[in-house]
């Protein structure tokens, strides 16, 4: 028994976990926090109760938003239907087939009736239901079930779920990158454990998270970011274990030219980095450091005020200054940390031997690609996403002129979902119009820069079978 408990431990929902709520095809990513209310599908819910349950459990939303695990999974034919018509020749749309009024239904809801019971009431009070064909009845019940559905499933986040969630909820934030296109990017980019991958994205961190998931904590990812700092909201949703962040590096794109020219100084105090820090997207940081900067050196001030007489006032002042000092110290540490990180990322990039490049942003991809492709080793894949084909046509043309790449392909994928039911199989009526375009290819050594066989290969370093 105890062993069984242990077995389940990693599959249990814990406080602080990043989870995904699911109802039907709607997903929402949240973090579990005590007494925190979240809104999902127009309902307030409290997540406290889900802690300790297994992932993929379906919960029923009780009054007050608390969740109760659903007892038994409802069988598909919970509402037994015997009588059915053959066609709709006698069904007239007079708007009076439903005997229950809106108010009746509201009252039932307030009485706390289960949704199955409400649906049964609706069926019983529909004068046309028994004349409908079996299929139409089925459809009717499904539709009502969806409407009065009161359950939510808690899932462990994965790339599949988060990509589908972003595409469904906030396609604008991820440049309308559809999940099948993301899947192509990961495969065309040969993203796998142990490699060194460059990522430039403005897709809320979704692409970065997807790359990190595929690398499983092995190797390194260097996020090239524009502006004040990397955006990683999407990465948070994945809920990666802490050690995954050890492989994640960041490098501001504004330093790329300096790095390529060899003029990037990561050792000395870098005023631009400080400036950058002030413009960081987090609102708090935007204001606080500013105030601290005005303070100058709080240490000097303290020396003077420390000798004052009034204890109460002084203590208050002292505390405030202490806080400020602590903050300044914290900030200093942060800046130091940032500089250290920049140096680490620069060191990774300097060899110009990255194994992959993934670009998905709202920026014009041409300059981004031409700038970053220089960091790749020869014979490595790269993949560029754009919502628009025209920008990639330009990339394609430039790369052809410049040389250094082969296997260039400009593609997009077309995705169609199917309803598969006995005698009712067909493509879904609605499909996505477009999921963006990809330009993929492989780097090769350019003519002039190709040195003739630098050194003899360290042959048979791996003593595996080589002849077969």
């Amino acid at each position, binding site marked *: 028994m105890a062993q069984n408990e242990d077995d389940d431990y990693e*599959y249990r929902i814990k406080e602080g976990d990043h989870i995904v709520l699911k109802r039907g095809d709607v997903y929402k990513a949240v973090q579990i926090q005590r007494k925190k209310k979240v809104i999902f599908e127009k309902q307030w819910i409290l997540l406290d109760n889900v802690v300790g349950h*297994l992932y*993929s459990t379906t919960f029923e939303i009780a009054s007050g938003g608390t969740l109760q695990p659903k007892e038994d999974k409802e069988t598909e034919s919970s509402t037994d239907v015997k009588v059915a018509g053959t066609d709709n020749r006698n069904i007239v749309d007079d708007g009076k087939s439903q005997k229950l009024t809106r108010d009746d239904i509201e009252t039932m809801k307030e009485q706390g009736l289960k949704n199955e019971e409400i649906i049964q009431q609706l069926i019983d009070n529909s004068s046309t239901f028994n004349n409908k064909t079996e299929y139409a009845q089925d459809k009717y019940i499904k539709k009502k079930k969806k409407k009065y559905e009161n359950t939510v499933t808690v899932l462990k986040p*994965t*790339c*599949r779920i988060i*990509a589908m969630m972003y595409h469904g909820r906030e396609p604008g934030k991820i440049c309308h990158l559809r999940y*099948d296109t993301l*899947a*192509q990017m*990961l*495969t*065309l980019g*040969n993203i*796998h*454990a*142990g*490699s060194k991958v460059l990522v430039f994205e403005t897709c809320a961190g979704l692409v970065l998270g997807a790359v990190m998931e*595929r690398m*499983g*904590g*092995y190797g390194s990812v260097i996020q090239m970011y524009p502006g004040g700092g990397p955006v990683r909201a999407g990465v948070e949703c994945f809920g990666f274990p802490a050690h995954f962040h050890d492989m994640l590096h960041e490098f501001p794109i504004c330093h790329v030219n300096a790095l390529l020219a060899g003029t990037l100084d990561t050792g000395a105090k870098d005023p631009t980095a400080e400036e950058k820090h002030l413009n960081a997207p987090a609102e708090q940081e935007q204001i606080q450091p500013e105030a601290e900067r005005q303070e100058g050196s709080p240490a000097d001030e303290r020396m003077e005020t420390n000798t004052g007489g009034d204890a109460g006032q002084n203590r208050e002042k002292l505390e405030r200054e202490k806080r400020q000092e602590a903050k300044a110290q914290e900030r200093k540490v942060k800046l130091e940390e940032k500089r250290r990180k920049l140096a680490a990322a620069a060191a990774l990039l300097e060899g110009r*031997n990255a194994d992959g490049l993934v670009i998905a942003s709202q920026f014009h991809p041409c300059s981004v690609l031409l700038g970053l492709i220089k960091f790749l*080793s*020869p*014979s*490595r*894949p790269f993949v560029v996403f754009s919502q628009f*084909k025209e920008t990639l046509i*330009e990339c*394609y043309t430039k790369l052809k002129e410049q040389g250094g790449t*082969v*296997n260039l*392909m*400009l*593609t*997009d*994928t*077309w*995705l*169609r*979902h*199917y309803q*598969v039911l*006995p005698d009712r199989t067909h493509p879904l009526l609605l499909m996505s119009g477009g999921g963006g*375009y990809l330009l993929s290819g*492989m*780097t*090769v*050594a350019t003519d002039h820069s*190709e040195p003739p*066989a630098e050194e*003899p*290969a*360290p*042959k*048979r*370093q791996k003593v595996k079978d*080589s002849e*077969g």
Partner: protein
Amino acid sequence: MSFIEYSNLIQDGDVAIVHLGHNSVTAVKVQHGAQTQTRFGVIRHSTDLIGQRYGCKVTCSKGGWVHVLHPTPELWTVALPHRTQILYTTDIAMVTMMLELKPGSVVCESGTGSGSLSHAILRTIAPSGHLHTVEFHQQRAEKVVEEFKEHRVDHLVTVRNQDVCKDGFGVTGVADAVFLDIPSPWEAVGHAKAAMKKHGGRLCSFSPCIEQVQRTCQALTERGFEEVRTLEVLLRVHNVRPVTLQLPDFGPDSSSSSSQATEEAPPSAAPNPASLKIKTTTPPREMPGHTGYLTFATKPRT
């Protein structure tokens, strides 16, 4: 070289991908003293390949040149010797994501076929995952074992020569994901369920015909699988090329000509009619319109 790890230099025993231009590639087993004939002439392995850097340009005997690329599952898919119909990269990409494969995943696959998908799975689940693949055709099973060895991924894969519909995958309760590409997947759904972890997992079945899909979906629902979804994904390739479009000559413009030019050549004598050059893409004349339906499902915890 390995299919799961990049290296810089070409070594004896590697499998290198020779890029002959225009998306035409061929796989070459690098061996001291061996030669490879291409339409650009011969490549001598000892001098032209061994010790060179992957991505280098190799000049062949006839003066033509090729690029030598590091092997990847995607290049292997277009270069591999077909022993069966294979899965291509577009479907593979979708399968990999929807099965939630990542380093450490344990995967069951049947049939192995020519190993196109197998290599992609191995790439993704390395270094800590494992692939259990089942192929009922003995010769194919033996051949693919040989390839896994040559490609240095054999430590991550177990090939079983048995009938998955009768004998299952040879493992129980271990798989995070199952992939089926067999003529009657509905007969293997039970075995698939047995192979999967108690805590659940994902399943995918690839079938060209809708009738196969229907029977599979029914079997999946009967066996308690959830979230059964069928989809189809197609690759569209856009050929980038400049296009020149002529502009028609409307003859002299009466309003502008009266004010500007009194002396105007007759319309017929106009030099080259103006044309406009645009950069655009054209679709290929024909494209694969169907590969197969992909049916995905989730096995709940049991």
